[in-house]
């Protein structure tokens, strides 16, 4: 096993990986930007190295500086976390070139899976279902029209070079096609430096279900079941759970097999996630593969008991997987709520600043992966995700009740967070019944209002607060009043009586 690892990230995921280092007796190093001098990951690591100014382009995205730190700190391996350089082919190559182990797949695998057109074709060729579509780049308008007719509306125009909803357009009628194509190409160019787009069938109200996989360098591949991630807002996942409410043993076996096959065909190694779309008839389609540790990986850890980060270390160190597919057992149900520094009651506007107080939930079945602490100033430069609330229980029903209990205990003051949003979801019948898809937030929550429950209590409390304040003011006025020493007073009274 490695003796020393560099964690090239920040926030909760850096802390997550640093914790694994500590438990494995591995010396850890990390990097920090100007505003992260006293961030939690900087306080947690064994060694810390400054790499630049606050903007990520000046620090966490600087491949040169990170490789330099890795050499200076004499680490054997680098864990990239998620985001930043985690899926960056150049970074993986730079590690390879410097003789430092990149804890993740090879740069070649990242490159193959990073191009959506190539990866889709690769999967389709071996019989893994993919969404019907152009099968390759769309050259011009007339080709787009031919393709769209062939596939049938509605269709989706997508960028080959990236995700996150950028360079993406839904087209429902032929007359919308031309302008949508132009917009998508222009967005793709500016977002990813690559104008290539392709067209595929647009699935109405699909569910987003992904499979966690582990693959060692010796050809062994297993999957750790699914995660349902359909609670999304602008393609950002907010709540994830496992098992999926719609999963059957048969469907799980088929999708798991497809996920393992996808990994094998891409010669992928380490931990990864195969994402699928599932339509209303339970047909599934390969969407893409995330070539890194996911935000939501703890959901799988809770139901399998497997520590995915530790497995990543072992795989990167060349060890063989210690468990076989048939030994992996699913136990209970787990739900993750992403706690972000955003105001859900104000269109998820970012909310940064000093965290005045944190009270975290405790007791049975609770796991908190946090990247902040009481007194920390949440900077404006990075992702708003500040913590993850994870809950395990013996069943989905029990888990939802436990999440509700935990959210009621959870208090973060000083900034706004997504906690009220999660409370709302946990009380929404569609979610509780498991009847939701990726349109859930727009279609169901769009109409739901955030209600307040304590008007009377607030009125009583503020009046009590006022009367206590007045009393304190009265007491301190008496204390401050000079010369009314009771001893002096009584002697003065005596003198007067004479």
């Amino acid at each position, binding site marked *: 096993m490695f003796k020393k690892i560099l964690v090239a990230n920040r926030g909760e995921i850096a802390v997550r990986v640093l914790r694994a280092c500590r438990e494995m007796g591995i010396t850890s190093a990390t990097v920090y930007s100007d505003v992260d001098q006293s961030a939690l990951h900087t306080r947690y690591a064994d060694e810390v190295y400054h790499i630049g100014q606050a903007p990520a382009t000046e620090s966490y995205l600087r491949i040169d500086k990170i490789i330099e730190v890795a050499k200076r700190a004499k680490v054997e391996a680098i864990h990239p976390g998620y985001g930043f350089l985690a899926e960056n082919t150049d970074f993986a190559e730079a590690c390879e070139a410097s003789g430092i182990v990149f804890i993740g797949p090879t740069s070649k695998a990242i490159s193959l899976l990073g191009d959506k057109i190539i990866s889709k074709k690769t999967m389709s060729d071996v019989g893994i279902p993919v969404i019907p579509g152009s099968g390759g780049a769309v050259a011009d308008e007339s080709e787009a029209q031919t393709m769209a007719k062939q596939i049938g509306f509605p269709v989706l125009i997508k960028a080959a070079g990236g995700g996150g909803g950028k360079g993406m357009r839904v087209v429902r009628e032929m007359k919308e096609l031309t302008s949508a194509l132009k917009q998508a190409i222009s967005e793709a160019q500016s977002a990813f430096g690559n104008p290539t787009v392709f067209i595929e069938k647009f699935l109405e109200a699909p569910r987003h279900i992904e499979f966690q996989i582990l693959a060692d360098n010796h050809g062994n591949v297993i999957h750790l079941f699914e995660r349902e991630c359909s609670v999304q807002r602008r393609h950002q996942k907010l709540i994830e759970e496992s098992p999926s409410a719609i999963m059957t043993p048969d469907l799980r076996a088929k999708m798991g097999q497809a996920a393992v096959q996808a990994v094998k065909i891409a010669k992928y190694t380490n931990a990864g996630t195969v994402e699928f779309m599932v339509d209303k008839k339970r047909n599934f389609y390969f969407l893409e593969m995330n070539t890194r540790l996911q935000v939501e990986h703890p959901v799988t850890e809770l139901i399998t008991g497997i520590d995915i980060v530790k497995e990543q270390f072992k795989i990167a160190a060349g060890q063989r997987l210690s468990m076989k597919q048939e030994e992996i057992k699913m136990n209970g149900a787990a739900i993750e709520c992403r706690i972000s*520094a*955003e105001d859900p009651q*104000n269109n998820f*506007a*970012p*909310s*940064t*600043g000093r965290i005045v107080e944190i009270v975290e939930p405790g007791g049975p079945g609770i796991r908190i992966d946090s990247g902040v602490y009481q007194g920390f100033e949440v900077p*404006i*430069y*990075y*992702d*708003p995700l500040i913590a993850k609330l994870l809950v395990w229980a013996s069943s989905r029903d029990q888990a939802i009740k436990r999440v509700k209990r935990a959210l*009621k205990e959870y*208090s973060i*003051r000083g900034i706004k967070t997504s*906690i*009220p949003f999660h409370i709302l979801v946990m009380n929404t019948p569609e979610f509780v019944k498991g009847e939701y898809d990726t349109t859930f937030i727009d279609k169901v929550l769009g109409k739901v209002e955030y209600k*307040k*429950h*304590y*008007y*009377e*209590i*607030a*009125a*009583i*409390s*503020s*009046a*009590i*607060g*006022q*009367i*206590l304040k*007045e009393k*304190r003011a009265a007491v301190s006025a008496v204390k401050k009043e000079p010369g009314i020493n009771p001893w002096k007073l009584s002697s003065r009274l005596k003198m007067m009586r004479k």
Partner: protein
Amino acid sequence: MAYIAKIDNKEFKVDLKQEGKGFKVYLDGKPWVVTVASDKGSRLTLIIDDKPFDVILEADDHIFVGGESYNVEIFDEQVGRLMKASAGRSEKRELAVEAAMPGLIIEVTVKEGDKVTGGQDLLIIEAMKMQNQIQTPRDGVVKTIQVKKGQTVNSGDILIIIE
């Protein structure tokens, strides 16, 4: 003591009488029994009709109860005097558009003298990898623009004044 409490613009009459270690409270005539279980100035634990509540009195006339935040104005009923400082701002003809979040000004899409209509985009602020369009809540004319592209602003900074 009797107060008028305006909670998010709902008005309540709160009449308090000290009783032992606690208070007997009449809220619009309805009686409640309150024990002050803990008084740490801006933090109270109250037991109201046998139910415990943690209450945080925030500096900016907000009160935090059961994880929810309420805007509060308290008036002394007898003298009708506002006890806290937040109110009294009169409606002005000018409207200051403030930054709802700290961030970086990506673009200002209007210029001084422009006529704008309610809901129209004024500028774009980026924070936490997200671009946010800031709109004018009502019709008017852009009087002054107090920020420019590339500038960093804090929450509450005045961005644009609409007349």
